[in-house]
């Protein structure tokens, strides 16, 4: 299937609707909201192709292309996925969100199309508030605009670019201006970061990172205390944690988070 840029968001939505109406079993991993789709169309980074059973979309990135699909007939999914072109030295990343039982047969289709399981993230939410020592929160503060570059370099230096959406510098600056990036300082420079997003009654914890030399001294906890305090009116705290990061998972449980049923499976084809 030749990939082309869609002319508009309507064209993308119409094709997905057609697949859903015609198929026997509709599945998709296309969760982008309209603003993100429009931005990708404007930037010319979104390409799509369709046949009778499926729509596939590719969002071009500097390091890898992200693959989205909407499929009406699971048996044909692996053929559709295998048709997505792979640039020389390129890499395709896709993800599937759901329970283990829901996603297992779909992951099989990805595997037959040449993808392999790369990593996975568990969804957690904070079911009950638990006492975090708020006395010490004063040491954590909202980041300043001049911290943005340092914050960006810590995040991009620590987190995995394939699976953990690394923000660009503009995105860091926007979040700093919105005062949703909290930091602690040691010797004048940033020693730890907690970045969250917020919409209405929901908040998502994006990054929680203490520089290695400052770990185990309570900085992580101060950031958490400040976060929960700043978001006192939030009713849903969510996050994604890498399944293999048992230490972080235990700490989140310690702060009142519990595992939700969803897992995000990251798949990669090189």
């Amino acid at each position, binding site marked *: 299937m030749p990939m082309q840029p869609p002319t508009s968001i309507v064209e993308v*939505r119409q094709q997905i609707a057609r697949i859903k*109406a015609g198929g026997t079993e509709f599945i998709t991993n296309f*969760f982008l909201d309209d603003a993100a789709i429009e931005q990708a169309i404007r930037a010319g980074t979104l390409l799509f192709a369709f046949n009778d059973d499926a729509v596939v979309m590719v969002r071009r990135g500097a390091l890898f292309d992200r693959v989205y699909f909407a499929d009406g007939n699971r048996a044909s999914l692996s053929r559709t996925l295998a048709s997505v072109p792979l640039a020389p030295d390129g890499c395709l990343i896709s993800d599937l969100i759901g329970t283990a039982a829901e996603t297992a047969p779909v992951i099989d289709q990805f595997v037959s199309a040449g993808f392999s399981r790369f990593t996975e993230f568990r969804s957690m939410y*904070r079911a009950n508030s638990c006492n975090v020592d708020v006395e010490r929160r004063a040491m954590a503060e909202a980041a300043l605009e001049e911290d943005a570059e340092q914050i960006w370099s810590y995040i991009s230096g620590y987190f995995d670019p394939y699976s953990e959406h690394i923000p660009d510098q503009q995105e860091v600056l926007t979040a700093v201006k919105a005062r949703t990036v909290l930091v602690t300082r040691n010797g004048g420079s940033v020693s730890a970061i907690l970045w969250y997003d917020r919409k209405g009654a*929901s908040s998502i914890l994006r990054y929680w990172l203490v520089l290695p030399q400052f770990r185990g001294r309570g900085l992580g906890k101060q950031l958490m205390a400040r976060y929960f305090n700043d978001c006192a009116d939030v009713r*849903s*705290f969510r996050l994604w944690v890498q399944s293999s990061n048992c230490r972080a998972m235990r700490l989140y449980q310690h702060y009142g988070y519990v595992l939700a049923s969803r897992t995000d499976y990251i798949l990669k084809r090189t």
Partner: protein
Amino acid sequence: MNTVLKILSEIRPEFDFSTSEDFIADGMLDSLDVVTLVSAIDKHYRISIAGTEIVPENFSSTAMIAALIHRNGGRL
């Protein structure tokens, strides 16, 4: 209506959906939740909600969701 509330609370157990007038504006359902909800409704009511109807406004309250199910041939 109770079934809709039950499906919603399985998706976002941390919320009480009976107290909000606008799930989208209140940040109670995001685009991932909406797609999850569509598939749960399709399965439960044995219908297939039209793809063109999968827009946030149609999921803003239990009344809007009930109307959507009804329009797509589901019996509440």
